[in-house]
């Protein structure tokens, strides 16, 4: 396992200060997926399973080239295959690599009540720390992309880590490395956005795709995975990619107008802590490693 560390800028269910917040300016990382040059070869699926050492699971034929209907706790990267007939009668066979979008404002993290079960690093990666996961499944509700999945045996939730262990060592994620056509790119969000916009422009100017555009939905603050789509006005045709994804209202309510409830609880906690101090005095506490080791939670 990598010994490198990443700084955390957001922590789920955490009331105290966050060590990485505003302490360091770091580039936000981003995957750019050009769906118009994806050939659905599934090299990224294999690379993901192999790099993350995920156990195989059984699949059945389902009238499609798609490996399985949706991502699984042990299958984080899935290409969705969709046949779409255009108005002129021609066919599009759309292939979209589906995985965690690493939202800037992650619904999963907002929804998660377990302290430190979901973190967002300063480079933008949203990572699950299964050691802290309580198996409540709120993150699944909070995700507008239906990505995190629970292992029914261990009641822990898993999803793409954006290969934090590789990224922290300066490597690209495994899926990116495996892509044979170069439809997958990895870099800073700014660079990827620029590359994606220029590719979309090329498609508008030189191919028969006047609606080509970049998918980087503002409803979740933008995503750490962006797409170029043949038709950006209609992302639903790519296996239900939401047009305007946002964090569910229930989660927003909990984290927004009703946050005072949590604050009351937090103050209660602080009072309790003070009373505890008065009663028992200071205690030598093990240095808590708040800078979490990438991938360390998934064991």
């Amino acid at each position, binding site marked *: 396992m990598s010994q490198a560390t990443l700084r955390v800028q957001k922590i789920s269910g955490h009331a105290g200060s966050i060590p990485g917040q505003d302490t360091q300016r770091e580039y936000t990382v981003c995957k750019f997926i050009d769906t118009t040059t994806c050939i659905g070869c599934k090299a990224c699926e294999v690379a993901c399973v192999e790099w993350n050492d995920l156990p195989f699971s059984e699949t059945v034929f389902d*009238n499609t080239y798609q490996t399985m209907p949706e991502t699984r706790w042990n299958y984080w990267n899935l290409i969705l295959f969709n046949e779409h007939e255009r108005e002129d009668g021609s066919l599009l066979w759309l292939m979209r690599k589906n995985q965690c979008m690493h939202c800037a404002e992650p619904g999963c993290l907002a929804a998660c009540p377990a302290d430190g079960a979901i973190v967002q690093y300063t480079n933008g990666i949203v990572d699950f720390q299964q050691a802290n996961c309580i198996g409540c499944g709120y993150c699944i509700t909070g995700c507008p992309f239906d990505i995190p999945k629970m292992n029914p045996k261990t009641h822990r939730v898993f999803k793409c880590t954006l290969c934090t262990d590789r990224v922290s060592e300066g490597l690209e994620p495994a899926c990116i490395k495996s892509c044979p*056509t170069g439809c997958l790119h990895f870099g800073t969000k700014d660079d990827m956005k620029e590359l994606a916009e220029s590719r979309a422009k090329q498609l508008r100017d030189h191919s028969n795709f006047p609606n080509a555009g970049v998918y980087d939905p503002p409803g979740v603050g933008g995503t750490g995975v962006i797409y170029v789509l043949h038709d950006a006005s209609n992302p639903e045709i790519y296996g239900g990619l939401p047009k305007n994804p946002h964090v569910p209202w229930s989660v927003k309510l909990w984290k927004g107008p009703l946050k005072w409830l949590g604050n009351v609880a937090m103050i209660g906690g602080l009072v309790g802590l003070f009373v505890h101090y008065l009663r028992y005095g200071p205690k030598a506490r093990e240095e808590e490693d708040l800078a979490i080791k990438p991938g360390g939670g998934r064991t």
Partner: protein
Amino acid sequence: MTNGWIDIKNTDMMLIMGGNPAENHPCGFKWPVEAKRTRNAKLIVVDPRFTRTASVADLFCQIRAGSDIAFLGGLIHYAIENHRIAKDYLLNYTNAAFVIKEGFKLPEDGLYSGFDAETQTYDNTSWNYQEGGDLSGKPARAKGDPPPKENKAAAAGKPTPPPHLPENVAYDLTLQHPNCVFQLLRKQYSRYTPEMVERITGIPKAQFEKVADLFTSVRKDGDMKKVATIIYAVGWTQHTAGTQTIRTAAMLQLLLGNVGRSGGGVNALRGHSNIQGATDMAGIFEILPGYLKVPVPADTDFKTYLERITPKSSKPHIWDSWNYWSNTPKFAVSFMKAMYGDTATKQNDWAFHYLPKVDRNYSWTYIWDDMYRGNVKGLFAFGMNGVAIGPDSNKNIEALKKADWLVVGEIYPDETSEFWKSPGITQDEMKKIQTTVYRLPCAGFAEKDGAFVNSARWLQWKNAALPPPGDAKPDQEVLARIFLRVRELYQKEGGKFSDAILHATWSYTNPQNPALAEVAKEINGKALADLEDPVTKQQVKAGQQLPGYAWLKDDGTTACGNWLYSGSFTEAGNMMARRGTEDPSGLGIYPNWAFSWPANRRVLYNRASCDLDGKPWDPARKQVWWNEATQKWVGNDVPDFKADSKPKDHMGPFIMNPEGVGRLFVPIGTVADGPFPEHYEPIESPVENPLHPQQSNNPIVKKFKTDADKYGTPKDYNIVCTTYRLTEHYHYWTKNNPMNVQLVPEPFVEIPAELANEMGLRGGEKVKVTSARGDYVAKAMVTRRIKSMMIDGKKTYQIGVPFHWGYRGITEDEGKTAKTMANLLSPTVIDPNAWTPEFKGFLVKVEKSVGAEP
């Protein structure tokens, strides 16, 4: 490939047809994508199905399987009639201006001149150039003129000498002579109108015209800068018209001036890691390594053999031709020296009589036919799964039952090594099978070193990653040990013809397990005496590795296993292991990466990338050029040309043809079924040939004649079926790997949604596909990616069967699939030139399956 994988990035236009590289060559497919991204190159995909390659195409046409020549012929017609041709290139670099003999007849009725219905063969005497000089502006030979000499000899009852090419070819540089190749070509394809293309292929006229306009747009207004490439794979070869289909593509590319040029060419994608190497090293019965022809019984001595296989140049007298195959004696003698060492001497005809004389067809389908007939008693099956490969797997299984023994070298138990367990064989029947089966555990690809030759003709050396497990042995060790034991037996007991075995050279450090590097050095060749280049005075001492095939001699002073590979393992070391990543030209030539045959040349015929004066047609893509100062051909690539041949000498760029130019017209039966390709229906076809219903099929294609060889008609089998591979699997191998099985767990059949509606069939339900030979049960994949077609006014459906499954594998062993093989369906009928079976385009019927199979 005439070009290479990386070179595709340099193209402006791609036609991918008879191939599905996005699925079957995904790593190489990065280059078409690169061309699209960096050059806005256009991609046209023509296929019976909307494939993953089609998913990134600018234009897709659904074509009926087996009608490719009609489509390509239509493109030729379109290019000529719309003046989208490369005029200078056509005139100077092809045989367009050559005049064909009187008596040659085009196949308006389906037959070329010279057909003998009884033997189903052609007398190709009339398929030849006319002797003589400049016929510009002269009429064709008058009717009263005497017939050609060859006919006289035949009439007199003398044995007909094989026709040969005239040394001095008649020509018409105005291209107006009615019998010049260009006019004949024009006439031949004048029948391939867009309407006719629609009737045969099912591609609507308007769509065809759109594609034709786009593809030929590279030659709009005669501008030569742009380049188009044609990319294909076994979707073209696996037909009874396979060779001719590829010929049509080559002709179209010559017409458009795209051959020899960066971003152009005719590019065969190889479906296995070393299939190119297998061909180069004579993986077929009719060639020796380096494409030397095998001896036949009429080759009574070495001289006769060489005379037959060494072409003489044949061209207009005003032009020059290098005729590189005139060096054949040097390649052949050096090969004999590599085979038999000191035993091969001038006195004994270089041991020529040790070589078998091949008297008839011994290709794949014939081997199984012979075994079925009881003539072949045993089979070594290494690196292939003969039962599953087919065609007609049932016939192959029946054939193996009749064999005395079978040796299988494999890494898994497979359908061939367990043919006696194939579905349908009862316990009682099993007991009656007397074939002795030897299963030898062999090393996998990562457990061996050696070279792979890729589609781009690169010999790339690889190292073994780990040793073979358990008792598994590398192939060369298995073969060496068998050879040495057989030789020992001959030494002890003698035999009918032991010389060829006893005298074969076997001078490896470890004779029981030759190092592949030693074999590679032997193939490269070495000097047997001190040699000196008369011009450069460069010397090669006796025993040293040869720097290249230009050093080969026909006097026994050199030995070389395969002239094309000479230069791959020199005194400087193993050129195949080079990994230089410099690319000074930016064209993706990478001259220091591995070794590309011939002579490390990356694009073949690259002299044709320049105009007559030796200047590149496109200055932005400079491959080679004539350097006026040094009076030499130089370049970023190795010039595929005589280095000091001045442009004004007009030497043709196609140096491997005796004409020196590209062949629009192939003379004297080099291609057995006609000098120009003609559309013939597949042996099993839903319609009569709209061009000539009375001659629907290829007239020289012969059906096999045992009771196992059955052929269907559209009355009983109404649906066109094609077979293919998937990205997720590799042949019959990965069904043993859980990762691949997870990706695509089960066999399936792709069924058009419209047909499924008619049948009341839903996706995931089982279907039974039946041909005249057998049936196949799998789940249906109902898809809009295959549509119904109108073929000559008849509504026609096509289905697709991926072929990766059988009766041994993870899901098969667990009893989850039907345990049938796709090639139970395919017919035993083969292309008359390359002997490839017709796996793509035969007839079946489709029913809902009600059987009890899993």
